[in-house]
């Protein structure tokens, strides 16, 4: 396993941390999308609110799933 000489840590640990940070930021973004969709559906009633909200929640769940998988297998 490659290690960084100065800090003596595996490079892949550092890469894993970067992956996880990126995915956590993405998860926050997915929450913002849910919030934004809720605001839009409250502002505009276009008779298609439920599928749009489901789409936003599925996106959040997918992001959460990828984060959990990354945490477990990396």
């Amino acid at each position, binding site marked *: 396993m490659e290690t960084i000489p100065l800090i003596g840590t595996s490079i892949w640990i550092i*890469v894993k941390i970067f992956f996880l940070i990126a995915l956590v930021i*993405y998860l926050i*973004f997915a929450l913002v999308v849910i919030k934004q969709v809720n605001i839009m559906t*409250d502002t*505009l009633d*276009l*008779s298609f609110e439920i599928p749009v909200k489901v789409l936003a929640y599925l*996106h959040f769940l997918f992001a959460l799933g990828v984060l959990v*998988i990354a945490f477990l297998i*990396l």
Partner: protein
Amino acid sequence: MPDVFISKKPKKKSSAPTVAEPKVSLKTNGPESIVPPDPSHPDHLEDLKGHTHNPFAAFSFYPHGVSFSEQEPDEKVILLVRRHPITNIPWILLVIVMAFAPLVLSSFPLLDFLPFRFQEVAILGWYLLDLVIFIQGFLTWFFTVNIITTKRVVDVDFENLIYRKITDAEITHIEDATVQMGSVIRTLFDYGDLIIQTAAEIPEVTFDAVPHPDRIGRILSELRMKVE
């Protein structure tokens, strides 16, 4: 050219128009009349050219079940328009290409410098990116709408997943409306920009890449005359 997402309703054969009843004047005034139909006679709505129940319609005359938060009780939505569906092709193609890219590129050792478990997460991250491009494209198109009501023009700009802007101008403040159709594709699919000059605080309201801009201009003009 008809909107690709709007299926045309079969036209019902109407009986001889009766001029005395206002609800029938809807037909005598032509298919784009803004005369509010009698709500107790939904058949009159079905006869209107451009009226649809499709929530994805880019041009919906007297749309079914559409309202907005600032709508007044006596205010009726006359027209709902959004960008022509053809404008979605770039992001749809991008989503499709990105969905198949990992399969196509699997024969190229692009990620071989990473351990296998990192490659798996990278591919999942790629599909996450693909999904967000789809969601961004769809929601931006779906929520960026222009609404004409009996009292005002509302412009809802859902620029991206974080930024949105809602502006409105009263019908009485509208001074001029200009239609811009400047390319072969736009002429072919009958869509363009409608720029509305107003005397309100916001000097201009723009309907971007909307289908049938001439018809929207005519509807707006008729509405202005009626309000004045």
